[in-house]
C-alpha cells in the first residue's frame, strides 16, 4: 500500500463522516432554511472528500492517472454548481411563503420586499 492510497482512504472516510452529519442535520434542524444550511455545506465537503479520495486511492493502487484528473474535474464541477442549486431552492422556499422558524431574530428580506412593493405602488398611483 502506498502513501497515496492511505491518503485516499482517509479522505473517503472523512467524506462519509460529513455525509452522516449532513443527514443528521436534516433530522435535527427545525425549519427548511436551517436544514438547507447543514445539507449544503456538509454534503458538498463530503462529496469533495469522497470524490478526490477515490481518485487518489485508485492512483495509489496503480491504476491510470486518468482516475485522478477526472475526479478533480467532477469535484470542481460540484463545488461550482452545488451552492447555486442551494440558493435556488432556498429562494424558491422563501418566495412560496414558507415561514421562518419562530426563534428567528431578524428578517431584513421581508422589510426589503415590503419597501419595494410600497415604492412600486406609489409610482403607479403617481401615474394615475
Amino acid at each position: 500500500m502506498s502513501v497515496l492510497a492511505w491518503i485516499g482512504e482517509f479522505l473517503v472516510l472523512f467524506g462519509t463522516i460529513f455525509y452522516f452529519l449532513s443527514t443528521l442535520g436534516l433530522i435535527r434542524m427545525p425549519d427548511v432554511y436551517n436544514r438547507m444550511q447543514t445539507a449544503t455545506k456538509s454534503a458538498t465537503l463530503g462529496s469533495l472528500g469522497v470524490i478526490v479520495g477515490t481518485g487518489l486511492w485508485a492512483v495509489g493502487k496503480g491504476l491510470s492517472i486518468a482516475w485522478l484528473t477526472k475526479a478533480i474535474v467532477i469535484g470542481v464541477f460540484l463545488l461550482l454548481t452545488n451552492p447555486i442549486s442551494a440558493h435556488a431552492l432556498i429562494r424558491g422556499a422563501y418566495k412560496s411563503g414558507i415561514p421562518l422558524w419562530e426563534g428567528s431574530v431578524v428578517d431584513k428580506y421581508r422589510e426589503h420586499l415590503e419597501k419595494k412593493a410600497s415604492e412600486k405602488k406609489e409610482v403607479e398611483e403617481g401615474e394615475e
Partner: protein
Amino acid sequence: MTEASRVSKYLYTFIVLFVIWLFLTASLDPQELLIGAIFSAIVALLTYDIFTTRGLANLHPRRVAYFIAYIPYFLWAMILANLDVAYRVLHPKRPINPGIVECRTELKNNVGKLALANSITLTPGTITLDVDGDKYFIHWIDVKDASVEGASENITKPFEKFLKVIFE
C-alpha cells in the same frame, strides 16, 4: 469595465475548453491533442460571446496569483464551516439563532458577485437567499450583529479582498 475584443474573447474560451479537455482525457498523445483542439475551436466559436466579457484579461498574472492563493483560504474556511455545522448538529441544546440579514458589497462585476455568493453559501453558517444590486440577503444561522455594517464586516469582508483583485 470595457468589453474585450472578439479575438481575445475567442482565445480565452478556447484555452479554458482545451484545459478541461486535457483533464478529461488525461493523455498527451498527439492524436488526442489534435482532436481536442479541433473540438475546442468549434465549441468556442459557438459560445465565446456568452462565455466571457473580458477575454484574455482574465489571465493577468496578478489575478491568477490571487486566485491560487484564494483556493487554500477558501478550502480552510469550508472545513471550519463544516466543523461549525457538526458542532451545532451534535450539541444536545442545538445552539442556533437564525435570521435573515442584509449585507452590502463593493463588487461591481456580475461574475464577482456570483463568486461571492457561492463563497458565502459554503462558509460558516451563512447561505445566500437573494442578491439585488449591491445588497445581499443572507440567512445566517447564528446572528451576532443584525445591522447592515456589522453583518458585512462578519460575512462578506474576508472574501472581498481576494475577489476584488480577481474579478474587478
